[in-house]
């Protein structure tokens, strides 16, 4: 079928991703689909208690189960037995202390999944229970147990403060002040492919096929944790069945490695159940935010105070970096000359807080954008006008102190939104509310920085090969977890080389074949690798045309142009097949490699080296403005989002369809965050342990979405693009919050998500729902 192969890739066009063909046929092999011959199953006994000192693990009974091959505990780990992206504070198998219910105590390898389950249930352990910490406030109470007794910050993983202008003092010069406190829940990624993989250890070499966002970092981390040299460890990352940040860090890798090394020469498979994924995987951080925003009478923002507490769970994971990004983005895309922004990421015995699409920004945007609406109301300005009045442009500083040095399109987004029918016709639509229904319209904005920030080099290495058959192979090391970066690389290379899809091939991330490219995260996949790839393509083009000129004994390389499968010599019209040219070149000559390192900011916005190390400040930002229309059923408290629109500045679109996909998916996740997804725990134990109690949006819950882009050129981006993978989710919750407040006379909820029950409460106690007494105007 020629749905794709004969078309020519072109940047800027909506083109289907070639992997979709295999995916619709059920042929694409995800990590979950690897079943090696005579494979064994590996699984983990988890603690089920939130905090305790481990005394011993008893595996005798489990060993007697027929079909059980091996049972490992921490005593069998030869490496550091510690993993973690920034701080290595998480044990692979617990050796001293249990810090949350999902901690792994023992690893069982068995012939069948049934034998595995039976054995896991028979493992018991002795422990001394320790009091647990389940809120950030408890972590600082006098006499609170220390979750990591050697951590210099006590129960505080990281705290930091960004002060600009006169800081808090500036509130004295404000004509109007509003204040808001909200508590946000954890959010579960709920990717459809749970954490899984297959490993085999043969002749001293370990190879792991895994559902991951970070194959190269996995290699280093796993090698150290389990005691194998990195050269002996190969990580293979097929198309990933959803990641969203939850696979940005080790999940099954070290466990699988240990299992494989204990049972060499056979493939070992591990697949977390949905419950295990909920229990052991990271979550979006639960957060408490306190905001105070001050403005002049004319609506110009003057001062901002932010206090943000993030519950980071028992391990660092990426909690410090999440806090850093949250602080940098706390003031949104606005000019506010004076700000005091402080925050903490706090250790608790809850589930692990980690990376999740948005990376701290959805939390701060939730509070900031509601504060903006409160201020608009107080000063009788429209929500759009007050945003436009304060929106940043290039050269401005955002409240954290970061100077915006690259394309800055929030004003364009707002202007476009203002012209949108959903905005212009909002009042008419609201007036037509049926009986018992309230209607409201609300907006919210966000900005989102791309990449790792100034400290960790943000690099990708592209490799391009002209095969002997005259086709081009793109070796990319940055995982495609569904965002579609793979097809954008084909579009870029195909466009520059003027080749059809049938002449192009992708080699998926594999530490044995591709080169380090960093993680598929931080809205950087397409940007960073794309820049590296363009360079590799240009080098290839020059080399091939020059070699063609040499072998045809004609003038120079620039007399040639690429056509599908061939080079054409322009002066004579002669065609030179790429396969023929490839035959003239040695294997090294047929390969080009190029490394790109993203621009790092040279600006210092804080003297706090810990914050700098955690990624502040960024240089390239995307921007977005969202608008939601909601309808509230006053009898049931049910909220329906009827329409949704968003305008985004993410540079030039490489593939408009993919832009739509990212936006739609991000908005859907954001609506889940706002309305349904309540990850409830009780003393560290999950009360919403699976998809029947933790409700993610289904097809009936998502409104039609109208999305557009302002299509500004970002000069540092490949073909002018910027990342869109995260900004799509950042302002969804506050857009809903503002729409709900608009519908019901200013009622706002403190504890999110805004379930029907909470909505009913707001409706019965208008304007001042329980706990919302802080959400008010002060002057």
């Amino acid at each position: 079928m020629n749905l794709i192969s004969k078309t020519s890739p072109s940047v800027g066009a909506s083109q289907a991703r070639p992997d979709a063909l295999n995916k619709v046929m059920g042929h694409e092999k995800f990590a979950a689909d690897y079943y090696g011959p005579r494979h064994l199953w590996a699984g983990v006994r988890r603690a089920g208690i939130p905090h305790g000192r481990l005394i011993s693990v008893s595996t005798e009974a489990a060993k007697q189960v027929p079909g059980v091959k091996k049972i490992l505990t921490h005593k069998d780990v030869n490496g550091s037995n510690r993993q973690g992206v920034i701080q290595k504070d998480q044990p692979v198998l617990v050796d001293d202390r249990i810090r949350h219910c999902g901690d792994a105590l023992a690893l069982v390898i068995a012939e069948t999944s049934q034998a595995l389950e039976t054995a896991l249930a028979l493992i018991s352990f002795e422990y001394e229970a320790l009091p647990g910490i389940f809120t950030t406030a408890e972590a600082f109470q006098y006499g609170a147990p220390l979750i990591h007794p050697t951590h210099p910050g006590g129960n505080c993983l990281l705290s930091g403060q960004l002060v600009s202008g006169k800081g808090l003092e500036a509130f004295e010069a404000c004509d109007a002040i509003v204040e808001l406190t909200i508590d946000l829940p954890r959010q579960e990624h709920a990717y459809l492919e749970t954490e899984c993989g297959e490993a085999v250890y043969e002749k001293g070499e370990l190879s792991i096929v895994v559902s991951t966002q970070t194959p190269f970092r996995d290699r280093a981390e796993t090698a150290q944790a389990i005691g194998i040299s990195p050269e002996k460890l190969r990580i293979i990352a097929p198309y990933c069945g959803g990641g969203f940040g939850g696979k940005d860090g080790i999940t099954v890798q070290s466990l699988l490695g240990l299992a494989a090394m204990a049972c060499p020469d056979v493939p070992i498979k591990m697949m977390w159940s949905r419950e295990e994924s909920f229990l052991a995987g990271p979550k979006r951080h639960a957060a408490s935010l306190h905001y105070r925003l001050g403005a002049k009478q004319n609506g110009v923002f003057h001062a901002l105070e932010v206090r943000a507490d993030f519950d980071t769970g028992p391990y660092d994971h990426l909690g410090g970096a999440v806090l850093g990004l949250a602080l940098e983005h706390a003031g949104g895309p606005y000019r506010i000359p004076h700000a005091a922004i402080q925050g903490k990421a706090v250790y608790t015995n809850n589930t692990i807080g980690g990376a999740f699409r948005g990376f701290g920004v959805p939390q701060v945007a939730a509070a900031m954008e509601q504060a903006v609406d409160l201020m608009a109301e107080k000063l009788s300005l429209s929500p759009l006008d007050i945003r436009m009045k304060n929106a940043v442009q290039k050269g401005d500083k955002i409240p954290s102190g970061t100077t915006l040095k690259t394309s800055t399109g929030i004003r364009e987004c707002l202007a476009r939104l203002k012209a949108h029918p959903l905005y212009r016709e909002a009042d008419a639509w609201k007036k037509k509310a049926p009986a018992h229904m309230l209607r409201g319209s609300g907006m919210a904005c966000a900005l989102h920085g791309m990449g790792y920030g100034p400290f960790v080099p943000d690099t990708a290495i592209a490799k391009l090969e002209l095969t002997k058959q005259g086709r081009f192979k793109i070796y990319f090391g940055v995982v495609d977890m569904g965002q579609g970066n793979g097809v954008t690389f084909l579009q870029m290379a195909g466009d520059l080389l003027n080749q059809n899809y049938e002449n192009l091939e992708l080699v998926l991330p594999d530490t044995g074949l591709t080169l380090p490219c960093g993680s598929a995260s931080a809205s950087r996949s397409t940007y960073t690798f794309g820049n590296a790839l363009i360079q590799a393509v240009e080098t290839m083009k020059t080399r091939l045309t020059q070699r063609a000129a040499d072998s045809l004994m004609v003038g120079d390389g620039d007399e040639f142009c690429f056509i599908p499968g061939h080079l054409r010599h322009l002066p004579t019209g002669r065609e030179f097949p790429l396969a023929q040219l490839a035959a003239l070149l040695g294997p090294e000559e047929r390969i080009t490699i190029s490394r790109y390192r993203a621009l790092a900011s040279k600006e210092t916005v804080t003297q706090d080296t810990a914050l700098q190390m955690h990624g502040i400040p960024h240089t390239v930002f995307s921007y977005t403005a969202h608008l939601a229309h909601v309808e509230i059923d006053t009898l049931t408290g049910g909220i329906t989002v009827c329409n949704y629109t968003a305008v985004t500045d993410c540079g030039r679109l490489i593939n408009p369809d993919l832009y739509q996909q990212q936006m739609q998916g991000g908005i859907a996740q954001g609506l889940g965050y706002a309305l349904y997804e309540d990850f409830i725990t009780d003393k560290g134990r999950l009360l919403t342990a699976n998809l029947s109690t933790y409700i993610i949006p289904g097809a009936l819950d998502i409104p039609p979405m109208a999305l557009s882009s302002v299509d500004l050129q970002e000069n540092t981006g490949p073909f002018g693009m910027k990342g869109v993978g995260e900004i799509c989710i950042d302002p969804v919750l506050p857009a809903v919050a503002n729409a709900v407040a608009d519908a019901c006379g200013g009622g706002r909820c403190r504890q999110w998500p805004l379930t029907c029950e909470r909505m009913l409460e707001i409706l019965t106690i208008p304007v001042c729902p329980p706990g919302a007494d802080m959400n008010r105007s002060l002057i």
Partner: protein
Amino acid sequence: MKLSFTLNHNALTLETEPDRRVIDLLREDLGLTGTKEACGEGECGACTIRVNKELRLACLMIAAQIEGCSIETIEGLAGPDQALHPVQEAFVQAGAVQCGFCTPGMVMAVTDLLEAIPDPDETQIRKALSGNLCRCTGYQKIMDAAQLAAKKENKCLP
């Protein structure tokens, strides 16, 4: 037990435990990994197959239940020369596939819908998809794909 059934139009007899989950039978024993498991308890629809032309969840069925039945999985949907089924084609063209892990189940659900209602409206499509979770797409392009597939099947489109 000895189990006989038809799998994607081919008759098959094999030896298995009567309580083997159909999803394990398909994926692990028969190598048909197109049918996905994402919850194992009937919540997500990733394991959707058809049994005697009716949608079923392979994670909730055991081998003994499919004795003598006709089973269709995602792998059986394309034509003999791997020509895509119109629904599959529509998913590719409409951009309804992101990570692709929900896709086989979604394609099965839409195929089944269009056989029952050749020209469904938006609500009918949303309802038909309500048993299938997707965490990537926000469902809009899956809706588009269903509508496009309906047009293709009704020959309104080439």
